[in-house]
């Protein structure tokens, strides 16, 4: 504040823990990540500069194919999350009465807090060959042999959608809450159809919420490991699995660091692009 005398001690008391946090746990580790990605063990036991980790990535088709595949899925699931949840967010904020909406909104948050591992496990139970859906369909006689759903790209996508979609609902609902009903009435009064109202009024209005939600969903999906690993099939290779493998089964940390850095690059550049396209700021995403 303006008062110079009282400025000192309080200011330092506040900034020192924050600086320690940001420098030790955010900045330095990421510098290390970058450096490690350019290092490999020399025969003498020291470290030498190398481009081999990046070369490995760009030369083996499987790595960048997985990379592209992961990014494409992440974008697809982000879009899907929007399509699936937007009508619900709208329903809860604009259609039903407040009495029910606060209860239902709370219900939305429960799977979020229960945690990914538990809900992914739930989907495993549901989609398995002897899972809830197959047993039910067999029971009612609709099928006589289980449909193979678990361990496929389908089950993986369901899991990813499920764990991430609620992060779309929350910010979208908060922007929709501030949307004045009379805007919709005015548009209807001026002869707009439901579709027009939706595309020209509601969507543009809730764009800030959609962007925040989209970024969080995208981030979660592209960086997720549990759902692809537990629900994914024999061909669903997720880029985080590569990183995980490099660190936790093949002990090639340098290559893992390079992959991690590439993942960081793609996720931040797609987020940057999304912010640019919608003309928003990162600060907004947080709030």
């Amino acid at each position, binding site marked *: 504040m303006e008062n110079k005398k009282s400025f000192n001690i309080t*200011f330092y008391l506040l900034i020192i823990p924050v600086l320690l946090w940001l420098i030790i746990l955010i900045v330095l580790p990421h510098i290390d990540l970058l450096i490690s990605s350019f290092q490999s063990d020399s025969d003498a036991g020291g470290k030498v500069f190398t481009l081999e980790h990046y070369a490995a990535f760009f030369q083996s088709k499987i790595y960048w194919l997985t990379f592209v595949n992961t990014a494409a899925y992440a974008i697809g699931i982000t879009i899907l999350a929007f399509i699936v949840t937007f009508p619900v967010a709208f329903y809860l904020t604009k259609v039903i009465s407040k009495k029910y909406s606060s209860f239902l909104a709370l219900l939305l948050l*429960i799977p979020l807090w229960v945690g990914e591992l538990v809900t992914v496990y739930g989907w495993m139970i549901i989609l398995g060959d002897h899972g809830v859906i197959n047993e039910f369909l067999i029971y009612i006689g609709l099928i006589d042999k289980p449909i193979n759903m678990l361990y496929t790209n389908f089950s993986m996508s369901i899991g990813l959608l499920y764990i991430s979609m609620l992060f779309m609902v929350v910010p979208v609902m908060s922007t929709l809450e501030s949307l004045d009903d009379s805007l919709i009435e005015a548009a209807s009064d001026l002869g707009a159809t439901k579709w027009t109202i939706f595309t020209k009024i509601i969507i543009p209005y809730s764009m800030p919420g959609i962007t925040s939600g989209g970024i969080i969903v995208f981030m979660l999906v592209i*960086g997720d490991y549990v759902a692809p690993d537990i629900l994914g099939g024999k061909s669903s290779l997720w880029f985080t699995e590569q990183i995980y493998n490099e660190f936790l089964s093949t002990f090639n940390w340098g290559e893992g660091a390079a992959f991690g850095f590439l993942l960081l690059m793609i996720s931040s550049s797609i987020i940057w692009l999304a912010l640019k396209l919608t003309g928003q700021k990162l600060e907004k995403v947080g709030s």
Partner: protein
Amino acid sequence: MIRSLPNSPVYKYTYRFYVICFFIFLVMPLIAIAVLAFNDSSSVALPWKGFTLDWFFANTDQRTGLLADDGLIQSIFISVKTAFYVATISTIVGIAAALLFEEEKFRLKGLLYFLALTPLVIPGVILGISILLSSTLAGSYIEQKFGWDIAFLSPSFWLVVLGQFSFGATYVMLLVGARLKKFDRTLEEAALSLKATRLQSIWYVTIPFLRPAILGAFVVAFLISFSNFNTTIFLIGSDPTLPVDLYSRIKFSSTPILNAVSFLIVVFITVAALLSLFLNRNKK
């Protein structure tokens, strides 16, 4: 379309049907978990073979219930412990960050604020591996140079706490900061004019005003820590947290005991959520 606009019945009921489907989709895994936690069968699958509480209480050679499974109890305990420390440290640093960015003016503030927000957009896996890399680097260096083996510089309980704190503080900062935006700054000025020091005015005026947000942020940080997997997996030592333990059990063998523990988590969260709804309603 909205409450005040007339709709055709077809539209109205189709819409309602969709929303109902969505909520079924939403609760389906939770229900499936809950139901199969009481199924009298050793495999986690239908058909229903009768009701049992074995997966909570049994302690025989064939069946081990949750209460008899030391490993699982241990990992629940470790998770609670981790979450408690993470929430505490995150809350303290998060409040400091919120006060710093809302009330102070200094050079490079924009850059620092941007850094504080980055954990929101850095995948958890990356946070995990980068902290693993840097702590190993620092640990090896110290070990070679001084011969000290510093526990929290290699995967261990405290490294997990540090790793989860690195993003927990961001959430606390945002939640507390949002409340701080509504704070009437003249209250602090009034305290200063009544000869309180800056620290006293924060402690007696600002912090009490922020209390609901601080409590909320503590709970959020606790829950985020309790359910974290992506970052934790890289930093874990010999003490697995509940999600890590669940993960390896799901990978190696799933028995209804996993349903039992998942069911308890769901119940716990639901009760907590209903309680918060009830308390908020009473306040109004």
